[in-house]
C-alpha cells in the first residue's frame, strides 16, 4: 500500500494519496470504533486494543474496499466483531472482569453512588444478554445520539429493520429489568 514507512511525524505511514485518504477516514471514524468496542468490553484499555486492531485491519484491506464512503460502517463492524471475539475469549479463559469504568455523574453521597453503580451494572448485564443483532442496535443508538437513519447506514440495514430491532431490544430490556426491580427471579 505504501512504498516506505515514514517516521512518526504525525502522519500515518507515508504521504501517498491513498494513505492520506485512509488517515482522514480513520480520524473521522476511530472514536466511533473505540466507543463500539467499549460498548462490549467496558474497559478502556481493552477497547483501545480492539480499536487499534480494527484500524490495522482496515488499513490492510483499504485498497480492496469497493466503496470507501462506507469506511465508517466497515470499521464499526470490524471493531464490533473483534470486541465480541475478545469478550468470548476472555470468558473462555475465565478472566475476571475488572471494575468497569463509568462516566456517570458522581452522586452527592455514597448510597446514591452505590445505587447508581448497581443500576449501571444491571443495565449492562441486561444489554449483554441481548442477542447480538439487537445488542448492536442498542449500543449504536446510544452512541453520539445516533438516530434510526444513522444506525441503519452503519449497519447496512433498512430503517424499518432497525426500528423493529430496537423496539424488540427495548421490550426485552424492560422485561428483564422489571423483574430485577420487582425482585422476581428470572433466568
Amino acid at each position: 500500500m505504501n512504498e516506505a514507512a515514514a517516521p512518526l511525524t504525525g502522519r500515518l505511514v507515508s504521504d501517498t494519496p491513498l494513505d492520506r485518504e485512509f488517515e482522514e477516514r480513520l480520524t473521522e471514524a476511530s472514536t466511533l470504533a473505540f466507543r463500539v468496542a467499549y460498548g462490549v468490553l467496558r474497559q478502556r484499555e481493552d477497547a483501545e486494543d480492539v480499536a487499534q486492531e480494527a484500524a490495522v485491519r482496515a488499513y490492510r484491506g483499504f485498497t480492496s474496499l469497493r466503496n470507501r464512503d462506507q469506511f465508517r460502517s466497515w470499521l464499526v463492524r470490524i471493531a464490533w466483531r473483534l470486541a465480541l471475539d475478545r469478550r468470548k475469549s476472555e470468558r473462555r479463559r475465565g478472566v475476571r472482569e475488572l471494575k468497569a469504568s463509568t462516566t456517570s455523574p458522581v452522586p452527592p453521597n455514597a448510597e446514591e453512588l452505590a445505587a447508581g453503580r448497581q443500576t449501571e451494572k444491571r443495565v449492562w448485564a441486561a444489554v449483554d444478554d441481548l442477542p447480538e443483532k439487537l445488542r448492536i442496535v442498542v449500543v449504536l443508538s446510544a452512541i453520539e445520539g445516533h438516530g434510526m437513519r444513522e444506525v441503519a447506514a452503519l449497519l447496512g440495514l433498512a430503517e424499518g429493520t432497525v426500528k423493529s430491532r430496537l423496539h424488540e431490544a427495548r421490550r426485552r430490556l424492560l422485561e428483564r429489568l422489571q423483574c430485577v426491580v420487582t425482585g422476581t427471579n428470572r433466568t
Partner: protein
Amino acid sequence: MRCDRYEQDLTAGAAGGAITPDLEAHLEGCVSCRERLAEKRALLESVDQVLRMDLDVEPSPALRNRVITRVAEMERERRRIVPGVAAAALAAGLIIVLVAGAWARRRSSTPLESSAVAISPGFPVRDAVTPETHEPLLIPSTPRPLVAATPLVVQTGSRPAVARPASVREPEVLVPPGQEAALQRFVAVLRDGSVPPPPLLLSGASLESLIAPIPLIKIPALETKPLADSVDSPERSPS
C-alpha cells in the same frame, strides 16, 4: 385482575411500539395502568441515560500513535518478508522446471506410438513382415542421441519390448505395411539433405492401384405391404 391482560401491551407501548386501541381505551379509565406505563417509560429512560453516559467516552490521545506504530511495523515486516518469499518462490519454480524436464526426458525414452517422428538412417529392414496379420513393421533405430517423441509399444516378435534408456537409442517408428522401402529412401534423403525427398508414391502410380475398391454392400429390396385394416387396431379410433 383484569389489568394483567394489558401487561404485555403496556411493555410494548413503553418500548416504543404502538398503543393498541383497546389499551388506549383502557388507559382512559384506569389510573393504575397509566402509572404502570409511566414507570416502564421511566425505566427505559434510565436505561438510555446509563448507556449514553457510559458510551460518551473518548479514546486516549496515544491510540492514534499506537495505530501508526503498528501499521509502520506491519509495513516493515511486509517489505522484509516479500523479497524472501519471492526468492523462495523463484527457487521452487526452478526446481519444478528442472524436475519436470528430467521427468519428460525419462518418459520420452519409452518406445513410440505410430505418431513418432524420430527417424534414424541406415536401419535394417526387418524381413519379418507378416502380411497375413497386416501388422505394421517396426524398424529399429540405431543408437543415437535422444529425440523427443510420443510413447509407443514396440512389438518385437509377439510381445512388447521394454523401452530402452533415452540416452542410448532413439524411439522407434511404426511403418505401414509395404512402405518400409519408401520410408527408408525418405530418411536417407533427409539425412543427406541435398535432394528433396521423393514423394512416397511412385510417379505415375495411381491411387486406385494402391487402394482396394471398397466392396459395395448389397441391400436387399424391402417388401412392403399395407397393414391389415382392423377395427381392433389401437391407432384407429372407433367410428
